[in-house]
């Protein structure tokens, strides 16, 4: 009887937790920021127009904070734009304008770094705000940057620290010297140009176009319905994928490199510029395969109209694999 009571109590408790969780989800239905009142950390000196790190809306911004050379800089802005540039000072400077609907800009500091947040009143969401806040931010070049927006466009350049940028519908343009880059969007286009050696870059979008050029290292680039394009990179590892968008690769292959292209209904276009030294493993279930060098694709399955192509070009120093369901695959030198 006692055990039964314990079980019953646990069931009721668990049910209460589930109900409470759903209730909490239902209550959080506003897209605007809540009111914030966190004061800036006194350990960080400031040179600012504000006394407490809070700037009211409808004003221009000119704020400077001391910063660690490799600290975190976190930026959060729903709508408008965020432009971040690395510089050689151990300071973070924020300039720009705040729209009339912006409640305030909040700049706070802790041991890990500096947070910059554009705060809207509860009744305003990013869509109502239009160009909420246009911010230009200078940060120490080795800062670890995190930017999150909803519709605000993001631009970043001259940074060597890790970069993690995300937007829902804004565009994202990154000119990076960082070795760790993670950029993601839902419907906005993503453009990454890299210059660091041995960088690891992840660039994804749901419906936007993803473009990556000039980087050195390993790249993972994907979209669901958007196109994915990579060109003029020096890659030792590449994984490009889409579901219905097209994949376009322009460039050569490196010795020991591994290059994978996956698509479902979109096309795959590989332009190597010259005959690459690589093993090729290419297949399409119902699409065509064109090859401008090496052998022609053949039909190998009696169950499907699909084509396969397996061959080695040159001494086979790299591995290239491409597969699709119904999309065509074009291999050009």
């Amino acid at each position, binding site marked *: 009887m006692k*055990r039964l009571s*314990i*079980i019953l109590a*646990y*069931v009721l*408790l*668990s*049910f209460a937790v*589930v109900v409470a969780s759903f209730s909490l*989800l*239902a209550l*959080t*239905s*506003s*897209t*605007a*920021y*809540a*009111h*914030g009142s966190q004061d800036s950390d006194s350990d960080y000196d400031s040179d600012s127009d504000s006394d407490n790190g809070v700037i009211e809306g409808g004003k221009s911004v000119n704020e400077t904070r001391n910063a660690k050379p490799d600290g975190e800089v976190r930026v*959060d802005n729903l709508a408008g734009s965020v432009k971040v540039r690395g510089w050689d000072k151990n300071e973070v400077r924020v300039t720009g304008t705040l729209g009339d609907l912006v409640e305030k800009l909040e700049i706070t500091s802790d041991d890990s770094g500096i947070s910059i*947040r554009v*705060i809207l009143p509860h009744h305003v*969401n*990013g*869509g109502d705000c239009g160009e909420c806040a246009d911010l230009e931010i200078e940060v120490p070049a080795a800062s670890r940057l995190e930017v*999150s927006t*909803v519709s605000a466009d993001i631009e970043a350049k001259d940074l060597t620290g890790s970069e993690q940028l*995300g937007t*829902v*519908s804004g565009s994202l343009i990154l000119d990076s010297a960082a070795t760790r880059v993670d950029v*993601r969007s*839902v*419907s906005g286009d993503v453009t990454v140009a890299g210059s660091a050696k041995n960088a690891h870059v992840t660039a*994804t979008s*749901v*419906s936007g176009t993803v473009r990556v050029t000039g980087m050195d290292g390993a790249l993972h680039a*994907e979209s*669901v*319905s958007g196109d994915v394009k990579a060109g003029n990179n020096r890659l030792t590892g590449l994984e490009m*994928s889409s*579901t*219905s968008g097209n994949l376009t690769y322009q460039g050569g292959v490196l010795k020991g490199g591994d290059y994978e292209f*996956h698509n*479902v*209904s979109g096309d795959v276009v590989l332009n190597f510029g010259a005959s690459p030294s690589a093993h090729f493993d290419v*297949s399409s*279930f*119902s699409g065509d395969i064109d090859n401008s060098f090496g052998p022609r694709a053949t039909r190998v*399955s009696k*169950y*499907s109209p*699909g084509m396969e192509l397996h061959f080695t070009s040159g001494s086979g120093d790299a591995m290239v694999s491409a*597969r*699709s*369901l*119904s999309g065509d695959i074009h291999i050009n030198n």
Partner: protein
Amino acid sequence: MNNVNDNKLQKAVDRLPRDITPANDLWPGIAARIGRKQRATRPLWAYGLAASLFVAVGAGSLWFGLAQRTPGAGAAAGIAAVSPGATYFAQRAAFAENSVQSAPNLAPATRGVILQNLRIIENSMQQIEAALEKDPNNPRLRALLFDLYQNESRLLAATQQIQAQTNQRNDL
């Protein structure tokens, strides 16, 4: 020397009884002790875990049952009608779409983009499943299908992340 010892040992063994009949009343005591030990090693939290699992499964079933009535489930039901082996995909599609439909803080445009692309993934899964019916041992088709599962989970994860970020902003 070894032979002498072996002979002694053999004689001792031969003196042992050939079989031993245990007392009839031993087993109830053993069973009772085993029973006590089993009960003692079952921790209290196991009941809680079992109860939580039960509630979670129940809530999930309820949620899924409601999803079958949502507009998003209509498209999935249409998929089921196309292919007789697609019931599983239709149910998964309904579940995934409902999780996006029921996310309270997504902007309509964002929700639309996510749903549209979710359907692209689901339709692609259907196409690959149909292809696998023709060519069931094609490893590349299976690999593509696996990619799509990953894409789907990433899309749903992105939805949850947007949701979490919005909640975080609200909580500030």
